[in-house]
């Protein structure tokens, strides 16, 4: 599904504080895989996820999406990929505080141009999957951390993406909520979606089928 060939990413290129965030990254991600990306802070986990999520472009190397080089995609097409093919979950939830749960989950469908009437059933279904159906009309600021993250997961999967990318998804959660969120990721994975989780937490790493350990921008070990 995804292939990265010799991906390099350099921040502040040509300046004094030039920084190699990713160096010669080669990686395959197949449908149905559950991958943990681990490593210390600054190892390049988030940069790798940013590139996988089409939020950023590599400075060199080729990112293939089903054998199509993403480097040739326009900004608009990359945005459409994020909207339809890739679900993103981040540590700070990235939810709009003034919107309700329903409105937040509805946002990717709205951007995709789905009609209001066609959205309702799907949103109810996804909220049911993450156990948030009774909070549909609650504002985000009224929710706990776990509920926010479940809402973020619902939003990530509303357009039925092929892959879910999660950057430290349990970093702001207590242990009960961490378990609940991880269970959701496992359920998604079992339904055939690829899940990539960037994490420091060894307990989460253990729950993933494949582990990519990063250090100083390089993949140190694949297991």
């Amino acid at each position, binding site marked *: 599904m995804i292939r990265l060939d010799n991906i390099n990413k350099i921040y502040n290129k040509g300046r004094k504080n030039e920084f190699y965030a990713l160096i010669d990254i080669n990686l395959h991600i197949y449908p149905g895989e559950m991958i943990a990306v681990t490593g210390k802070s600054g190892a390049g986990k*988030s940069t790798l996820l940013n590139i996988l999520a089409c939020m950023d472009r590599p400075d060199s190397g080729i990112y293939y999406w089903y054998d199509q080089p993403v480097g040739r995609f326009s*900004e608009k097409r*990359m945005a459409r990929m994020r909207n339809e093919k890739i679900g993103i979950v981040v540590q700070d939830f990235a*939810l709009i505080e003034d919107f309700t749960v329903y409105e937040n989950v509805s946002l*990717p469908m709205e951007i995709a141009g789905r009609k209001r009437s066609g959205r309702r059933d799907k949103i109810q279904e996804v909220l049911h999957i993450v156990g948030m159906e009774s909070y549909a009309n609650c504002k985000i600021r009224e929710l706990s951390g776990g509920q926010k993250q479940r809402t973020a997961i619902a939003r990530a999967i509303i357009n039925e993406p092929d892959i879910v990318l999660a950057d430290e998804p349990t970093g702001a959660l207590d242990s009960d909520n961490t378990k609940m969120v991880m269970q959701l990721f496992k359920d998604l994975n079992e339904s055939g979606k690829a899940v990539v989780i960037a994490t420091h937490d060894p307990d989460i790493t253990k729950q993933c089928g494949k582990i990519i350990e990063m250090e100083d921008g390089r993949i140190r070990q694949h297991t």
Partner: protein
Amino acid sequence: MYMRLALREIKRSRKLFLFLILQLCVTFLAAIGCASVVSGQYWRYDAFKSIIGKEGWFVNTNLGLRIPEADAGTGRSGREILEKYLPDANIICTYSIFGDIFMDDAVLDIDSTVYDPELIDIMGAETEIAEGRWFAKNDGREIEAVISQNYYGLTEGDVVNLVAYAGEESIPIRIVGVLKEDSTVIKMNYSSDMVGYHNFLYNLQGDPGTQFLILQEEDFSRLAAANPQLKEILWPQGLLFIQYPDRISDEEKAGYDNFIADNLEIRLKETLETVDQKSKRYIKRQLNDIVPVLLVFCIMIVMSTVCVSVIEVRQHITNLSIYRIVGMSRKSCFLIQLCINIIILCLTMAVTAIAFIVMQRLGKDMIIWNTGILQTAVCAFIAVVWMILVFVVQYKVMNKHELWRMNI
């Protein structure tokens, strides 16, 4: 969708947006004021342009004409004498009346002036009427007049009588309108920068003791067929514009110049070209005094609103990041920002319009604001400059931010 999301952002930071709108509103009002001053000055000059924009002379004949000996006792009117000696020139002037104005049996102490049609037209556009109307096309058998605020209590519909010094017949004059207290009339105004168009305008508010009766020469000419003395009792006095014909020989011109020098009791005399130049210089100086101050004021407020808009974009940059995460392109995020700016601008225009109307209603006579093409154009220009400035600054802020990555 962009508009909806933009409205949401505005609702979320409504206090900041309100502040921004008020700032812009003040800018627009200042700009309208500035444009009103400019257009007001130019408009007045432009009204006189058809008179002073030609070759000839402006003469302030405070003592009137000195009749050439050969014309004494010929029964010619002052205008006819001028036309005899300046045959191809166009004469535009004000006249005094050889007669008294009576109300019942008492002579009124009133400054009565008769105007040629060109001057009546200029004044008609300038003066404001408190009661009744300005002069209209008059085919009747009465002379019409417009009067200033007066302690005789004369008002619209009242009739006074004109009795010539050399006659006993009483000629009725019907008052059709009463001027507002602060009206501006055409009368020599001895102020700075003599002589420009501004010296021909006289504001009655500065001279509350003077009572002013305005009459039009057309009425006298029309009724002169039945009553010839009506023409004879008008005598050019005050403002006299002598426009030379377009093609005039040097010899003819010298003859005209000599007649003017010998036969007019002159307090002031300038060529029309000089009057025109001095008028332009006067406008320029007026604008030099006012415009820079207002311009600096507008620039400062615009810069201030740009700063506030940076604060505003930083406040909702997180939401824009979220929109990008869920599938919006950078361009779409900028479009939301653009929509926000457009909504702010529209709201500002609405608030400005309301503020303008309220101010007009509350202090109509005190404010300098007017609406017009110039005012609209200036506001549009500020709006465009603001939009560009704000958007460029916001674009730079948004590009610098981690907006475009996941770790928001």
